[in-house]
């Protein structure tokens, strides 16, 4: 019967109907295809970077080629994968359904956001063929403005446009959350995924313009010779860092808050239990969003900013740790006396908590000024932010993929494939990044093409781990294709979820709900 059903996938036909669609669900799928392609590219660069570091000295490439691969790996993963990832793909798909709406508030703007990401990615990607960039994803001046080629200009122009995509998506989500909630759905009854996306959207709207302006100033300096960052023209190179991190620190939370939203959903569903401390989780998202604007200077403890500034930023950074810890405690408390099933999405949620705890605790080391001076810009930092961003966000992304796959496609994602993928990704992360903490202890700086022979064994272990991660994601991709071709019919609610998306057919009809739902209680009423 499900085959003949009228749903958003067969509502209209043909590629043109996809490219001009205003349906948030189809746009979510278009984001999925685009972002997964970028992820593949960024992943290939990651594997090449690690392969080069397998031996000291030249292994495969020259130093220039290595520096470029390192730059593209970072820029693609940050600006095109992890920042847009969960909000653009899963936010687009589930946010309107979760609040009982027919679509986002501005469907045309939503489609335009997708096109802006595509245009930005095309411009940034064109530098791969025109003139490679070797600045690192941070584009620090004066290296980017006076010491390297003109490829920096299209590169940051592309990032600028991608930033607009991010702002528009954020704006759309804020208005949607405020204006389109179903009757009875008060702000204290919206699912935690929506709270996370809402907090993220605030960050996107407020922080991203700062990046946009910074990148325009960089282009102005590089093309017109306006002295803003270059000391030879009377500028201040540290000013760029202030501007850059004023965006890029909140951006870390743009990456991780949606992941936290996913984890809240997974933990509740697979523990079949009301979430512990709904209010605390919801408002800690807002608290993280707010405080994260005031901590950017912790990237600059050794930049030459004043000692006082360092101490102040260290203090405020410590405060972010508290709401983050609250979330972890709440998830674990939710599992207490629950009815837990270790399906693949729950394994990814547990993997998230494991990796994110290590990432979060090592973040405290770096927030402490006296300790950070030793670890700053070493492999300790590389390990720390990969544990947080990659271990956190990508674990949640995989969990979300398998969890919502039946809703999106109507087919069940094979749990066994998900588990095999998890084993590779989870063990691979630890084999890759844990040795990097030790390399940081020993003093190996980051972004190094070549290293002292004493660092060899740990680098080899790390490279070996990267192959495990690569295998894990390939297994995950195989799972998607297999489920599309041979997956079992899913039914409306295969996992016993309580949020609104599980009350409608899979795949959902064109306008989500036949009849507007009316809410009488919170989202996780497992009794």
């Amino acid at each position, binding site marked *: 019967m499900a085959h003949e059903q009228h749903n958003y996938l067969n509502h209209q036909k043909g590629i043109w109907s996809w490219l001009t669609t205003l349906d948030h669900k189809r746009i979510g799928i278009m984001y999925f295809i685009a972002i997964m392609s970028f992820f593949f590219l960024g992943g290939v660069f990651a594997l090449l970077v690690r392969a080069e570091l397998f031996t000291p000295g030249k292994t495969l490439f020259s130093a220039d080629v290595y520096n470029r691969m390192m730059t593209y790996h970072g820029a693609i993963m940050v600006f095109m994968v992890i920042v847009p990832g969960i909000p653009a793909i899963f936010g687009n798909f589930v946010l309107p359904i979760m609040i009982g709406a027919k679509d986002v508030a501005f469907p045309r703007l939503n489609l335009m956001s997708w096109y802006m990401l595509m245009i930005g990615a095309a411009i940034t990607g064109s530098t791969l063929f025109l003139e490679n960039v070797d600045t690192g994803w941070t584009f620090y001046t004066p290296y980017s403005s006076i010491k390297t080629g003109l490829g920096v200009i299209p590169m940051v122009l592309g990032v600028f446009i991608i930033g607009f995509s991010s702002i528009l998506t954020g704006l759309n989500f804020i208005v949607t959350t405020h204006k389109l909630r179903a009757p009875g759905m008060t702000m204290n009854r919206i699912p935690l995924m929506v709270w996370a996306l809402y907090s993220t959207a605030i960050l996107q709207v407020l922080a991203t313009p700062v990046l946009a302006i910074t990148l325009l100033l960089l282009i102005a300096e590089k093309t017109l010779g306006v002295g803003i960052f270059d000391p030879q023209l009377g500028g201040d190179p540290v000013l760029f860092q202030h501007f850059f991190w004023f965006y890029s620190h909140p951006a870390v939370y743009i990456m991780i808050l949606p992941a936290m939203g996913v984890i809240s959903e997974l933990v509740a569903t697979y523990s079949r239990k009301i979430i512990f401390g709904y209010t605390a989780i919801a408002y800690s998202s807002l608290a993280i969003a707010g405080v994260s604007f005031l901590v950017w200077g912790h990237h600059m403890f050794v930049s030459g900013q004043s000692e006082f500034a360092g101490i102040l930023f260290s203090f405020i950074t410590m405060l972010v740790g508290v709401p983050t810890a609250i979330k972890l405690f709440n998830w674990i408390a939710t599992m207490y006396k629950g009815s837990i099933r270790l399906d693949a999405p729950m394994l990814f949620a547990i993997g998230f908590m494991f990796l994110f705890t290590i990432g979060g605790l090592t973040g405290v080391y770096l927030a402490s000024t006296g300790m950070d001076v030793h670890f700053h810009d070493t492999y300790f930092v590389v390990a720390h932010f990969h544990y947080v961003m990659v271990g956190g966000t990508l674990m949640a992304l995989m969990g979300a993929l398998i969890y919502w796959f039946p809703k999106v496609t109507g087919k069940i994602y094979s749990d066994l494939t998900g588990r095999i993928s998890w084993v590779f990704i989870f063990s691979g992360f630890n084999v890759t990044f844990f040795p990097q903490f030790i390399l940081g202890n020993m003093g190996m700086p*980051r972004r190094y093409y070549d290293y002292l022979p004493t660092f060899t064994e740990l680098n080899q272990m790390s490279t070996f781990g990267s192959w495990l991660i690569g295998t894990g994601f390939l297994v995950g991709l195989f799972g998607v294709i297999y489920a599309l071709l041979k997956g079992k019919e899913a039914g409306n609610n295969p996992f016993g979820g309580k949020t609104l998306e599980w009350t409608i057919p899979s795949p959902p009809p064109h306008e989500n709900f036949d009849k507007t739902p009316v809410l009488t209680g919170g989202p996780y009423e497992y009794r």
Partner: protein
Amino acid sequence: MNWFSFITATSFMPVPATKESGDVDNLYIFLLVSGLISFIILIGGMVIFIFKYRRKTEDQKSAYITHNTLAEFLWSFIPFVIMMIIFAWGWSVFHDLRRVGEKGDVEVHVTARQWAWTFKYANDIEINSPTDKKLVENDPDSTLLKPEIVVVPVGKTIRFILTSDDVLHSFYVPAFRNKMDAVPGRRTTFTFTPIEKGDFTVFCTEYCGTKHSNMMATIRVVDGEQFAAWQAEKIAANAGANNKGPAERGEALFKGSLGCSGCHSIDGSRIVGPSFKGLYGNKRDFADGSSVVADDAYIKQSILVPTAKIVAGFPPAMSSFQGRIKEEEIKDIIEFIKTLK
């Protein structure tokens, strides 16, 4: 902190070689132990719940617990207190590492440039690093160059005053647990009091282009007499250098304070810029298709306005030496290049 010594928490750290580094290590041990305890509580709790509350039958019910104010207060307040301790401890250690405005017993001006450090002592002794020799000589793939040695006395307060000629660099000595950016147009300081004798590696930790990983130096900590003897030897060598011929003076500049050898080889091999072997009197082809026979005027222009003529196949990476080089020094360099047949 000896009660911690049974835990070899700092076993992967380099030997703490300065007065300040021991304090950093104590903070590190506290962070590691408190972090490990937190990890065990969190993840241990999670693992216990996974096994204890595993769904055994499909209709298994869960408890209905919405919140617990006391537990939530405690798990917010206790982490807050611990983090405030870490903050205050970190602040105190940071203050000792920075020692803003404090004068050193030995003061050295350090200038960073792509991709070498120049150390200039008060009595005009100048050390430039790295050298043009490979660090691992029998490895053809090694790109690291041997770090030059900078000598300082043990037990004294040493202040390095850092700046940069071109882009951002960062001066990092793992054994000192200290690091400071070298910023163009600014002066920053790196103060330390060595307590261990030996050789300690300096790395650059702020990404600065092609040979970022190669920007090393070695700080050798010796006792007071050895330091005085080293200084005397260097001063004598400087005096001797003034009596040398122009080509020899040029060679010293090439390998030393001007750091040309970081980018240009003299044996025909490619580093970053073109080699100087057989340069003088021979034809140079440029990226714009033109060419010229290398003479005095061409070499002088290349030093002062490096972007005027870019040799085909090389990036326009060199910064101008305008204002950093004297007229006689240019002549000495040209004399040296003439000898590279």
